């Protein structure tokens, strides 16, 4: 069958498909150009530059895996990686548990639930940098809020952010405060889609509230928990704004995180080759998270 013999209302099928493709790519073009320039090219350039060093005269020299070897021998790299792990472990389970609790409360017919929802959600709309400014004051030695409370009990002043043993804890508490309300939203959305039938049936059977939560509500919320957890993991690698204000990664890198270390290396020490190498490490981590998400968790979601 040739295209001439095709019936004429409309165009021949092959031409039609071709026309479709052209139209679609024209629609995609503006977004594709920007995505290529600011996501795909930078990813490739990161890998490329991590294999080079810039000499003092500005020439770029291929050095193979040398930067990576240096990275694996860099004590600070391991330090910030471990910090990131603690930061994630400290913030994620606590903020998810709090978020779930908040959502359960707000979802009830409780007096003043609109106010409660407002109170829990408000930190989400604040800039991290403003949050850091406010909390910086709580942690200030001597006249900060925390030390004033300690003073009431006759305890001496404590340099919360200046001591390696407390600085990470301080960051974690602040970030939990900032993020819990955000995660609450996802639980709230999920709770409102749950059918009340199961819970009512269980209540009629005389099941306790804790039993209902443990055996019915929580399992039904599992997809939400996984979704929130993945987002929280990604966030824990992105959240570094507060470090610029509060600690600059100190004392002695005790509060530094991987992205902040990248920022320091590339923009304070101007070592872009090593900055690229560290970025490559971060990309590997994010890709691993992506593989877990798309390969394992998202099988039931249809992207096409």
């Amino acid at each position, binding site marked *: 069958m040739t295209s001439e013999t095709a019936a004429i209302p409309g165009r021949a099928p092959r031409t039609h498909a071709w026309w479709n493709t052209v139209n679609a790519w024209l629609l995609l073009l503006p977004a594709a150009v*920007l995505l290529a320039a600011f996501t795909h090219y*930078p*990813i490739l350039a990161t890998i490329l*530059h991590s294999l080079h060093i810039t000499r003092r005269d500005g020439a770029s020299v291929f050095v193979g895996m040398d930067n990576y070897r240096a990275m694996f021998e860099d004590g600070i790299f391991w330090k910030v990686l471990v910090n990131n792990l603690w930061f994630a472990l400290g913030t994620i389970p606590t903020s998810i548990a709090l978020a779930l609790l908040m959502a359960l409360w707000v979802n009830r017919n409780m007096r003043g639930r609109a106010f409660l929802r407002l109170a829990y959600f408000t930190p989400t709309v604040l800039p991290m*940098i403003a949050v850091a400014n406010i909390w910086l004051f*709580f942690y200030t030695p001597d006249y900060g809020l925390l030390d004033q409370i300690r003073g009431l009990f006759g305890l001496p002043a404590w340099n919360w952010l200046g001591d390696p043993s407390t600085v990470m804890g301080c960051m974690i508490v602040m970030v939990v405060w900032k993020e819990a309300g955000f995660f609450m939203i996802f639980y709230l959305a999920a709770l409102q889609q749950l059918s009340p039938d199961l819970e009512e049936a269980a209540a009629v059977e005389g099941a306790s509230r804790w039993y209902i939560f443990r055996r019915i509500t929580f399992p039904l919320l599992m997809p939400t928990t996984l979704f929130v957890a993945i987002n929280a993991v990604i966030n824990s690698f992105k959240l570094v704004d507060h470090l*610029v204000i509060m600690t600059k990664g100190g004392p002695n890198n005790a509060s530094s995180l991987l992205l902040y270390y990248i920022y320091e290396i590339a923009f304070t020490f101007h070592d872009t080759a090593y900055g690229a190498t560290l970025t490559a490490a971060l990309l590997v981590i994010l890709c691993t998270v992506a593989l877990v998400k798309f390969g394992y968790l998202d099988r039931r979601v249809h992207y096409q």
Partner: protein
Amino acid sequence: MNRSTHPLEAIAAWLLALLWLAPLAYAFWSAFHPAAYATSFSLSAPWTLENFGRAWSQAPFGRYYLNTILLVSMVLAGQLVLCTLAAYAFARFTFKGSSIAFGLVLMQLMIMPDVLIVENYRVIGWLGLLDTIPAIALPYMASAFGIFLLRQTFKSVPQELVDAARVEGAGPLTILWRVYIPLARPTYVAFALVSVSYHWNNFLWPLIVTNSVGSRPLTVGLAVFGAPETGVDWSIITAATVMTMAPLLIVFLLFQRQFVQSFMRAGIR
């Protein structure tokens, strides 16, 4: 769920809410009172706007506001156009390479411009845009999140409406404009609120690419102003902090329900 809440639980919920509001309440207290009361709480403390006046006169906050507003509008306008066109292509055209292209878009959900600071700085440098507002905005304009969200919405538009428009002789762009966009309005509102609050608050990338008063957004201006080296009074820094948060906070309080629902809508996807 009409069973009553145990009083202890209600008390716990309220305590948590007060605890959650306390840092904000503290910031407002300190901003609206003289420096002497920044650390001591007394009901008789006089109220004042002086901290705001001094913050305003010590740094160009007017300019920072303008920069942030320009930035947020530029990002949003770019995102709305680019994401609408791309989402339309993915939702309603079957074409060669569509699944690969969509995969390449989704990649940005995992590897956001926020982590590609080193190379994006280089790209912006090549374009000769360093220290400008477009430099802050460009990496975020082709938002994978926006494309994904709109594509899902466009896919739910009934085919009959599209066919009806086609019978009347409407071309692809007319159909997009007359049928798809009006029906996706709630998604647009949701996306706009999420985008505006994200970019109003964004900090690290603007800090890196800007270097002068003419391009710095509020968040970066606040960080420069409040840096410990400057030795500015605590109360004045708090006033500046409140100024930075206030516009978004006010919009949030006014459109609370809309905000929460938008974040929900954007979250479910």
